[in-house]
């Protein structure tokens, strides 16, 4: 079966800056312009929600993930709400990273891995229905535990890397705008604006991680998934990333996996607690940390295990 919305997703790829700039009503509202690019057939949606059009709701229902015989995510139902940061916490090996990787179909890149259940982005099925994993990943970006700048590319080319894989390469001037915008959103612009042509690996670890966030943001994903993004960083860099994540919520739906409960408390609006592959409890972050419903959640957040 073919879903009309997915067809629009796959066909989103025309990033032509000149036509963008020439639309008068989009000039002051880049979100609208981008949303229009993303959903050429979805005028009603843009009219309805205005600038929120690129803020999306990602919902997993009855999701199971396996590595061969090992069942690592068990019947999880979880929504990443628009305009918010959802944290997923739990002890090591509880399946939280695997859950995150199911949400942009990265799980299936591991040999022997498979997934059942459904994931939807604003109601559109991400699994099945002729949707390609490539199209899904273009709308659901991901940043990993360790910074992964492409070592052969300059800072500028790293940020633009995701755009170059799609048909319809933007003009040079438009690309410069996109790169600057992404670096600003990732709070890295001021540190690198004078050396965009130099190698990305010369940056510090924290800068590299923000570069990876900029690279993910440059393609204007509707959802950004962060898999323990500060696990390999020092405290100062961690703080910068946390502030950044906190600010990102206004423009992109964020899901963050962390085993640092303080971090979850600092950056997220909602928190989900996982244990042994099961989602035990999801609640507003304040509620989860002050009045958890489930005794297992309480045991974990009070430090009795994990």
């Amino acid at each position, binding site marked *: 079966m073919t879903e009309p919305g997915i067809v629009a997703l796959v066909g989103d790829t025309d990033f032509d800056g000149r036509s963008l700039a020439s639309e008068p009503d989009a000039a002051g509202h880049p979100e609208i312009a981008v949303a229009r690019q993303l959903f050429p057939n979805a005028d009603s949606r843009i009219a309805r929600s205005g600038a929120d059009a690129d803020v999306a709701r990602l919902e997993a229902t009855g999701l199971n993930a396996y590595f061969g015989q090992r069942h690592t995510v068990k019947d999880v139902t979880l929504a990443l709400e628009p305009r918010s940061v959802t944290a997923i916490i739990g002890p090591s090996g509880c399946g939280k990273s695997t859950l995150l990787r199911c949400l*942009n179909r*990265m799980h299936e*890149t591991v040999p022997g891995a498979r997934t059942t259940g459904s994931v939807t982005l604003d109601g559109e099925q991400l699994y099945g229905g002729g949707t390609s994993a*490539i*199209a899904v*990943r*273009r709308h659901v*970006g*991901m940043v*990993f535990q*360790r910074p*992964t700048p*492409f*070592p*052969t590319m*300059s800072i500028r080319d790293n940020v633009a*890397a*995701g755009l170059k*894989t*799609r048909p319809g390469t933007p003009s040079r001037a438009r690309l410069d705008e996109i790169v600057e915008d992404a670096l600003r959103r990732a709070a890295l612009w001021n540190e690198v604006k004078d050396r965009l042509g*130099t*190698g*990305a*690996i*010369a940056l510090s670890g924290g800068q590299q991680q923000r570069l*990876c966030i900029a*690279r*993910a943001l440059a*393609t204007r994903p509707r959802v950004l998934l962060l898999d323990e993004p500060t696990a390999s960083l020092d405290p100062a860099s961690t703080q910068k990333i946390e502030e950044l994540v906190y600010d990102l919520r206004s423009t992109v739906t964020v899901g963050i996996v962390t085993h640092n409960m303080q971090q979850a408390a600092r950056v997220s609006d909602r928190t989900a607690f996982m244990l042994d592959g099961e989602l035990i409890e999801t609640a507003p972050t304040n509620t989860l940390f002050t009045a958890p419903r489930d005794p297992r959640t309480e045991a974990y957040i009070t430090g009795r295990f994990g």
Partner: protein
Amino acid sequence: MSTTVVPRSTRMNRVKRRGMSGLMVTLTYVAAALATLPLLFIIAHIVKLGAGAISVDLFTKMPQPVGEAGGGMANAISGTLILIGIAAAVGVPIGIGAGLYLAEHKRTPLANTVRFLSDVLNGIPSIVMGIFAWQLLVRPVGHFSALSGGVALGAMIIPLVTRTTEEMILIVPNSLREAALALGYQRWRTSLSVILRTAMPGIVTGALVAIARIAGETAPLLFTAFGNQFWSTSLRQPIAALPLQIFTYAISPYDEWHSLAWAGALVLIGIVLIISIAARFATRSRFGAAVD
């Protein structure tokens, strides 16, 4: 607190340890010197005997008949460069492609077979490579050719480039592959524009080392390129090559040919040296940092 008294035996042990350490360090220095000695000896010897015959004529003039003064090896030098070019054009792309395949399909039965056969190919004597190229490209057309010599050398490059390509790709961290996939890269594009590109400096180095290895091969050329006393750049005709020319001159009874052979050897070493130095520079990637 009382001062610590070091027992006599411990002091003795320290003396023994230091002595042993000094001895071992000396031995490693000796081993390192012995490892470089043959090269230095060969270069010194060839320079001593060949430098006298090095002249502009050597690079610009054609070989002269015995008894006539002067003459050079212009055809052999250009022939060797042409043969190296054919070998690289044949061997490097196949080797890189095969190496990419092996790295992307690590443990499949076909990959294991290819890997094994590639190692066997690497061990095949170079004269057998010559017979192979003769059977394939000389016998059907009925005459020797530069092309057949280049293919024989190219076949020798393939397993070397395959192996280095595979190894260089395998040290590219998997996290880079994941990062590219997560950005919406197709699998083929991830392999080409991220993985292969990241591994490229190492692959280029490996290819240049392989080319330097075959630049001086003589046996595969004996009945393929065959050698040529005249100027030829045609791929379909027999072509001169430095190793063949050196061989011809060295086994001749004439003194002036002997000194030309030494000069040719010096030029050949020079070519290999230049390729090796190029390989060292290729290792430096664009942004001054190696992989990982």
